[in-house]
């Protein structure tokens, strides 16, 4: 219990951060078929924009402005880059974003330097909100929870209750049909791409100061975003949500399991001191997402909630 309750809370918060990061990619991927390799780079851009904005104003401005800026950059990338490559197929698009991730990394290094920047949690939120089994619980984590849930509600409202949402939903499940409804497809794509990037940027704003804002943050986050999208399934924001929370929980809960392979498979004669036997479940926790990625693609290629294989 002592580790279970905090783990649960941590898992949910981490999961929500993941969802914020990957919901945009799910939108982009489902509608445009582009598995955007550079998605985590927009997360990084969000954090750096926020850092720059907080230098001259404060965190609350950054919370609103930085995602918008990240979104504008994303829309620009779609309009002047991705759209040109579209004719050459999905592999070309994937490669384009692969190169873009490279490029954004290098540009960030030039503009903001190659070391971590001093992007801090705002003072108003820098206190302990409660204690849980001996460890402090920082208020900022609860704030993250709050922002993530607000985003979730806003997204849900946008998709279910507005006209634009209906078009996007239609486009999610039947990407080829939107053009027939008389909508300007390139513009919808650009908007969705921009919005997806803005969501990643938002994750950057609130994740960048909690974690560290440095040029390798995109590379660290990159693969895990794919895992969420693939495990969640094509065209399903619900799936992405479930996958995010699931990954968050699995990873944090696994950390609290100290059981080693030697103890589990001892009956097979595996020694606890051998190389394999001494590996504990906890030490493997960060690899769980990749294991899940491979297993899901092999066993259930449409993902948990996807409506079609991709």
């Amino acid at each position, binding site marked *: 219990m002592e580790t279970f309750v905090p783990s649960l809370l941590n898992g949910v918060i981490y999961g929500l951060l993941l969802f914020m990061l990957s919901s945009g990619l799910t939108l982009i991927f489902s509608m445009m078929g582009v598995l955007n390799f550079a998605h985590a780079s927009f997360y990084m851009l969000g954090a750096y924009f926020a850092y720059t904005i907080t230098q001259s104003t404060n965190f609350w401005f950054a919370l609103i402005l930085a995602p918008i800026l990240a979104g504008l950059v994303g829309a620009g990338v779609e309009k002047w880059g991705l759209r040109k490559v579209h004719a*050459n197929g999905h592999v070309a698009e994937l490669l384009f974003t*692969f190169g873009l991730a*490279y490029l954004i990394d290098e540009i960030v*290094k*030039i503009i903001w330097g190659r070391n971590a920047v001093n992007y801090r949690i705002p003072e108003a939120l820098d206190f302990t909100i409660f204690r849980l089994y001996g460890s402090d619980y920082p208020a900022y984590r609860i704030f993250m929870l709050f922002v993530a849930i607000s985003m979730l509600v806003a997204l849900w409202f946008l998709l279910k209750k507005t006209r634009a949402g209906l078009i996007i939903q239609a486009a999610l499940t039947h990407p080829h049909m939107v053009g027939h409804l008389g909508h300007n497809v390139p513009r919808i794509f650009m908007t969705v791409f921009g919005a997806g990037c803005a969501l990643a940027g938002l994750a950057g704003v609130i994740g960048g100061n909690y974690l560290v804002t440095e040029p390798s943050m995109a590379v660290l986050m990159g693969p895990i975003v794919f895992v969420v999208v*693939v495990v969640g399934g094509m065209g399903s924001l619900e799936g992405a949500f479930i996958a995010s929370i699931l990954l968050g929980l699995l990873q944090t809960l696994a950390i609290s399991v100290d059981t080693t392979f030697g103890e589990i498979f001892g009956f097979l004669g595996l020694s606890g001191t051998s190389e394999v036997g001494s590996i504990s479940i906890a030490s493997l926790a960060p690899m769980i997402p990749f294991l899940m*990625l491979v297993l899901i693609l092999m066993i259930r290629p449409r993902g948990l909630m996807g409506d079609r*294989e991709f």
Partner: protein
Amino acid sequence: MTDITQKYANLAPTTAQKFRQRVLPFLALAVVLAIIPMSGPSGTAYTLLNVMGINIVFALSYNMLLGRGGLLSFGHAVYFGLGGFAAVHAMDAIGSAESGFWANYPIFFLPVIGFAGGALAGAVIGWPSCKRAGTPFAMISLGIAELIAAAGLMFGSIFGGEEGVTGDRMVGHEVFGLSLGPTSEVYWFIAFWTFVGVAGMFAFTRTPLGKLSEATRDNPERVEFIGYNPTRVRYLVFIFAGAFAGLSGGMAAVNYEIFTPEALSLVPSGLVLLMAYIGGIRYFTGPILGAILLTYMQSMLSDFTEAWLLYLGLLFICIVMFAPGGLAGVLYGFTDALRAGKLGEVIGRWAGQAIGSALALFGMIILVEVAVHWSNGFGETFEPYGLHLTFGNPLTWVLIVVPVVAGIVILRRLANTEEGVIA
């Protein structure tokens, strides 16, 4: 029937054509490989050539998947690495064996061990990976690469921990009188295996399986209705790609005499993707060009500018956007026109494109260099030919904006006239 036999004879390329298209390039390759040492290369040149040889085989093996099989992999270095580790362990076995199989196994043939190791790894990992093509395949390869890279660091007894596994190539029997000590002798080893690898992979494209691999890339559904299981085709091709990657790993094992778990990671996997794509995945020779260029860039360009990664990224993006055929595509477009005698018609446009690109490139380089020097701080500035370029200097902006704009205007006008012609 005689009629058909005769027509069939007409269909196939003539002996002369076959010679020109299939034998001559390999003769030329062999001659080039043999001539290089006569120019008296320096140690650096030899080292670089050896790395190029390894990367040529590695990039070609990658293109068996991407170019010929339509399979985008983000984890090809896994097979390079596993083949290499197999070879390094074999090298140690040769060094310590008193008698028996290993004592008689010459180091010169280590790449065969790498080949077998890569094939085995491909056979095991390919089984779950090849069930799907397209994006799922790419994602599985990514996931597996992450898992193997993590395992590489965890299992010290196989991968030697961070320091990796080292070997000594100057043990065992000598073959062809090569002690393999100095890099100039290693060159002959690399040249031999590069030739074998290139020839082997070219031959593969000529086999029924090689052809089926292309057919499966173009249209996996149709392949099922001519009696083939596309999964099986992909799986077999995957094993071969892994095997040739392992071959290059075996070459690397002898060349470097060390293998570290870093070799399994996503970084070399990404690099080989860049090599193949920048070179041109639609042509057999493309990855060779890409491997040569990128090896040079990686080892030499970093002497001139620390922004070489940025240039690499820019080059890659430009290829993806404007020249999907890669360098080989550009080159073949040129020679095709030359052969068709249409050079006169297109040369003007090409010259224009070349000038436009060069101008845009010039401006971009100034921008990048000024920015990099600025970001390094401590008062460093970009000072080519005695110019003192900073962001505050109006001349800087002139040098950046004018060529870039001029270049883009030229390229756009050319693009427009081309469209006009087609319309």
